[in-house]
């Protein structure tokens, strides 16, 4: 008796174990992996109602985190939305599926300047989701007017300067200031940029990422590089803050929607990408996120004041000097790692 009961209990437990994992593949679904706080969640419901495709939506906090999750296995995302350089890395490692653009008619609405970017030169794998620029955010009452990266290296601003706390973004600024490409692999140029960062270190208040919001809003620091869309939220709290895209040019980032290799729901994934590229949807996202929509109609119809528009939709002349990241060869990445450890120690 005792034995039978324990065997039955074990059997039930095992059954529960496997019933939880199997199944659930019959319905139409699409598994989406996107940045945190990077969508108007009403759109997900709208998409489900319009297409009958259920969206399993998950979020990540960095390109690298997303990459490691994909590599770890055991997951089956269909759509991922990495940034430019990560798109090129995924392409290089053969992790993306070429898109069938016949299923994505809204691709025609994408701004031409954002097509065929260096990270996906033939534009076979990606559709831009949001984009924006990096610029200098500064308190003009403390550091005066700024139009060049030189302000970040100027000793008169000593103690008030913030800098990106990651090697790629920090180096990009130094490289741009020196007039080089931010995707350079030339060791000579990289060394010069590194020397510049080394010289800058003593006059910095610190290397930061999202702490920059609090520091600039409260006036604890007065100048630092960050994203245009995020400048707008800082400006709400501290109206003294101004934004500029430096005259040497800057980084333009694009987060683009891609379909993973061997995705089970490729058609649904393309339907999702098409839906998100629509004018209404892209505008709703842009309003919630505060970054710029790649849809060329949005800039004309979006209901924002001129000040916001000037920041979010910069003119072509400023953009012409901007560059997007591409994935660097392993050798250069190793150099970045080594140099960053040395710089920060």
């Amino acid at each position, binding site marked *: *008796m*005792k034995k039978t*009961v324990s065997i039955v209990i074990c059997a039930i*437990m095992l059954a529960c*174990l*496997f*019933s*939880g*994992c*199997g199944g*659930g593949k019959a319905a139409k*679904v699409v*598994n989406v*992996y996107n*940045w*945190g*706080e*990077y*969508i108007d*969640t*009403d759109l*997900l*419901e709208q998409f489900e109602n319009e297409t009958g495709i259920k969206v*399993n*939506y*998950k*979020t*990540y*906090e*960095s390109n690298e985190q997303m990459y490691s999750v994909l590599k*770890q*296995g*055991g*997951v*089956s*995302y269909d759509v991922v939305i990495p940034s430019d350089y990560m798109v090129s890395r995924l392409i290089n490692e053969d992790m993306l599926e070429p898109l069938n653009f016949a299923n994505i008619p809204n691709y025609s609405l994408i701004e031409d300047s954002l097509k065929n970017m260096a990270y996906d030169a033939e534009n076979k794998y990606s559709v831009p989701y949001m984009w924006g620029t990096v610029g200098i955010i500064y308190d003009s009452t403390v550091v005066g007017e700024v139009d060049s990266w030189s302000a970040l290296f100027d000793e008169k601003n000593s103690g008030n300067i913030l800098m990106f706390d990651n090697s790629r973004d920090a180096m990009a600024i130094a490289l741009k200031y020196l007039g080089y490409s931010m995707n350079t692999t030339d060791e000579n140029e990289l060394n010069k940029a590194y020397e510049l960062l080394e010289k800058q270190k003593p006059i910095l208040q610190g290397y930061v*990422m*999202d702490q920059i*919001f*609090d520091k600039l*809003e*409260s006036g604890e620091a007065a100048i630092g590089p960050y994203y245009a869309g*995020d400048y707008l*939220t800082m400006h*709400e*709290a*501290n109206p003294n803050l101004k934004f500029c895209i430096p005259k040497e040019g800057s980084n333009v980032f694009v987060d683009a929607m891609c379909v993973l290799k061997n995705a089970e729901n490729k058609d649904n994934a393309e339907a999702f990408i098409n839906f998100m590229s629509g004018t209404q949807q892209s505008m709703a996202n842009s309003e919630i996120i505060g970054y710029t929509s790649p849809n060329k109609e949005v800039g004309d119809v979006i209901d924002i004041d001129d000040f916001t528009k000037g920041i979010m939709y910069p003119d072509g002349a400023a953009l012409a000097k901007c560059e997007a990241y591409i994935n660097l060869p392993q050798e250069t990445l190793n150099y970045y790692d080594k140099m960053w450890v040395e710089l920060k120690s």
Partner: protein
Amino acid sequence: MKKNYVGGKIFAALTYVFLYAPIVVLIVFSFNSTKSRTIWSGFTLNWYKELFNDSLIMSSLQTTITVSVIASVAAAVIGTFAAIGFFNMKKNWRSPLLLVNNIPVVNADIITGVSLSLLFVSVGAMLHFELGFGTLLIAHISFDIPYVILSVMPKLYQLDRNLFEAAQDLGCTWFQTIYKAIIPEIMPGIINGLLIAFTMSVDDFVISYFTAGSSVQTLSMTIYAMTRRRISPKINAISTLLFAVVLILLVIVNVRESRQYKAEIKKDKVLKGVLE
């Protein structure tokens, strides 16, 4: 003596300030009209409204609660039976097994998470399943069980050794003995274990992160993913609500307990009066 007394009061006050100041700040800024975490710019209930409109936060909250409830109840059942089993073992078996039971409790979450993830991925490749709600739930049940066992064991040691035999003498089968005599006696331990398991599950980030797969996400994972763009005050709002719920529950439990206590004292007095 008097001076010490004042010092003690200050010390107690400081303790409470350190414990609760962060929560007060969190609650205050859930009503702030901008996203700033440092500057107060006016009162608003906007974040609460946005919170309920955010289907991602709501669905991850639902996932967290579903997983925690199922996992803690399952762990309470499994853990209780395991504890009864351990208790009835010979001592030279019991001690090493209890030691093994303690390892997951003191082991780093990250190791539990990674190893479970590796196990699920490799077994999943053989049996054709993927990481998902099922694996998340199994992971939670497995790390919850040791806590239940730990809180049930002491109750078993307190049991009267003769209870088993007494129940069986009175005609109980072995199952009825457990169900009618043992379980009611160790119930406080089970409830305690269940509550600890529940909080552990709600709290967990690391293990969930490695075992949740591509279709589900718990609240802690959602919050973590927000850190690129700075955590939204919606999270302050939901934390405030969770805090309020816990506070209200605690107040209810305490009021009930003190009422029961008072009722018992009254009963005692009445009984005494009758006897006298």
